[in-house]
């Protein structure tokens, strides 16, 4: 599987356009699988894939008493729409929970945006240096960063948490002070940045290294410093790669539970939506009108990104499929 081919054709696939025909061979294969049964199977699977989400949406829009008494599929026979679940879950919380999900929603945004921008900036800088500033050892460093992709982030959780809370010591000598970052977003931002770097540097390097040599050398000959070349030549040209990675990283952080749970804890001061929803699903499993509305709030942004920016979305997700 070449990544470029997959990305390019996947992007074409994902756009709701039927690709141009003319591939006789591929057609033969397709014909072999052609039958009404096949079409039926695809439609069946698509319905099957969509119904659970539909059930969530329908339930979140039904009055509390209906949700508790009848299945959501009766909604279409006896529709009764209300937005009060959304109001409750965002602002009131209900059943003994102070405040609603609003603080967590804000946390999600406040965590995700910086945790996307930081690695994007640092990785594109590193990628530029590795691709265009010739120095001894650049191959080794690139390979090292590339190889770090195999380390699951579980390997870093405990020591990193110890570092944030207590600093680092060898014997009694402090080599890194305790930063007192507890209760702030900083540990979550920094951790997401660290964990994103191997993949980000690798992907952006692949793109930036393929920019036209003439362009960059011409700028250098004209006397522009590496910093200037990076800002005014490389960054603008690398926009497609930056956009794909930004969307991937944004969704990765938005949907993440493990990093947030470890480094933010569960408090309304810093914890994002995913952490709160996982808690609620454990302790308030029977209030489906609240749980479904909360879940829908958390998936509405990824879904909007998906349907709005499908091309970049698919490309970014495919490129990032080995991250973790």
């Amino acid at each position: 599987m070449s990544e470029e081919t997959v990305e390019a054709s996947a992007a074409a696939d994902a756009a709701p356009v039927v690709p141009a025909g003319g591939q006789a061979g591929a057609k033969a294969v397709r014909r072999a699988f052609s039958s009404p049964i096949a079409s039926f199977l695809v439609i069946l699977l698509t319905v099957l894939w969509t119904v659970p989400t539909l059930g969530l949406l329908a339930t979140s829009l039904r009055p509390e008493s209906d949700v508790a008494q009848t299945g959501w599929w009766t909604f279409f026979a006896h529709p009764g729409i209300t937005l009060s679940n959304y109001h409750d879950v965002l602002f009131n919380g209900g059943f003994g929970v102070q405040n609603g999900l609003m603080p967590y929603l804000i946390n999600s945004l406040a965590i995700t945006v910086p945790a996307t921008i930081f690695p994007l900036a640092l990785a594109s800088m590193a990628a530029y240096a590795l691709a265009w500033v010739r120095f001894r050892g650049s191959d080794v460093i690139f390979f090292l960063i590339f190889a770090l992709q195999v380390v699951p982030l579980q390997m870093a959780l405990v020591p990193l948490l110890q570092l944030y809370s207590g600093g680092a010591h060898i014997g009694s000598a402090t080599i890194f002070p305790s930063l007192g970052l507890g209760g702030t977003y900083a540990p979550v931002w920094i951790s997401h940045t660290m964990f994103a770097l191997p993949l980000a540097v690798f992907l952006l390097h692949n793109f930036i290294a393929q920019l036209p040599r003439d362009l960059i050398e011409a700028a250098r000959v004209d006397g522009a410093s590496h910093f200037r070349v990076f800002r005014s030549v490389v960054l603008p040209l690398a926009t497609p790669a930056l956009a794909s990675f930004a969307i991937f990283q944004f969704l990765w952080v938005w949907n993440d539970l493990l990093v947030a749970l470890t480094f933010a804890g569960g408090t309304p001061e810093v914890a994002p939506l995913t952490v709160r929803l996982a808690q609620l699903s454990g302790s308030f499993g029977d209030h489906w009108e609240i749980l479904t509305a909360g879940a829908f709030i958390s998936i509405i942004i990824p879904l909007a990104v998906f349907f709005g920016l499908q091309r970049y979305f698919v490309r970014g997700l495919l490129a990032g499929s080995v991250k973790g």
Partner: protein
Amino acid sequence: MWADALTKFGNAAGAVVVFVAVLLLIFFAAGRATGRVSKPLAVTIFLGPALLLLAVGLIVPAIRTITLSFYNDDSSKFLGGSNYTWVFTSSGEQQILLNTLLWIIVAPVVTTVLGLVLALLVDRLKHQGLYKAFIFMPMAISFVGASIIWKFVYNYRDPSQPQIGLLSQICLWLGWHNPPNWILSHPLNNFLLMVIMVWVQTGFAMVVLSAAIKAIPDEITEAAVLDGARGWRLFQYVTIPMIRNTLVVVLTTVMITTLKLFDIIRTMTGGNFGTQVLANEMYSQSFTEFNTGRGSALAVILFVAVLPLVGYNIVQLRRERATR
């Protein structure tokens, strides 16, 4: 509450502004340097932050996790390999390893097969973009969101009462009057949780495999057709061998995701009812039981298990990049 939101957004925006301002300032100052120092300076500034973060966030913690795995719960006493012995001999942990094994075999195979079937079938339909979009959609949703969606589907109520869980209701419609409490039924619950993983990942498998099938050169399929290959034989002797590498990459990619699976178990069962897996047990041991030694040993086992899969994937990716 709005004041709270304002403060939080202010913090996030402030962090981004300071970050960008510092970068620009450094770029401006370092860009004025000329002569012999300019290149080492540029390399340091471009590459330094990323390397520092990778060292502090991944390399040192990974080494420290390996060390900690040989110590006791609060890292005060050296234990040798007894944490590892515990993982492989205690009956609770053996159940977890068995579950994990079951997961990484069943979920990836089902996902890949379904993805392949869909990739072959969907191409011939009208509005294929629509079907693909709906099957790919769960990929945008967080595992936490997906878990809540499916927890609702698996909801259990006494059969004499009106049902709100779709699965139970379907069973009743089909004439099974006594459906079980799905999530509590071991070992069935493991497979019900795998359904969530398959639901999320099938779209990914479909898009990647569909792209690979389209990339098969026409001449090859045409030659096979001229030689009389049709239908199943064409599929078996041409399509499958031509996309074998992609199939393996999809399979291993889903396996990696499955091995690191945490969110679904955490949200659905918290690891109870015989559904615990490796990555969630690693979290529980480290952060609920506060047994750093055992948690670290589990992390190392996860790392060793993932290593060959990720290694294979990135080597494959690199090799095919090189041949183009």
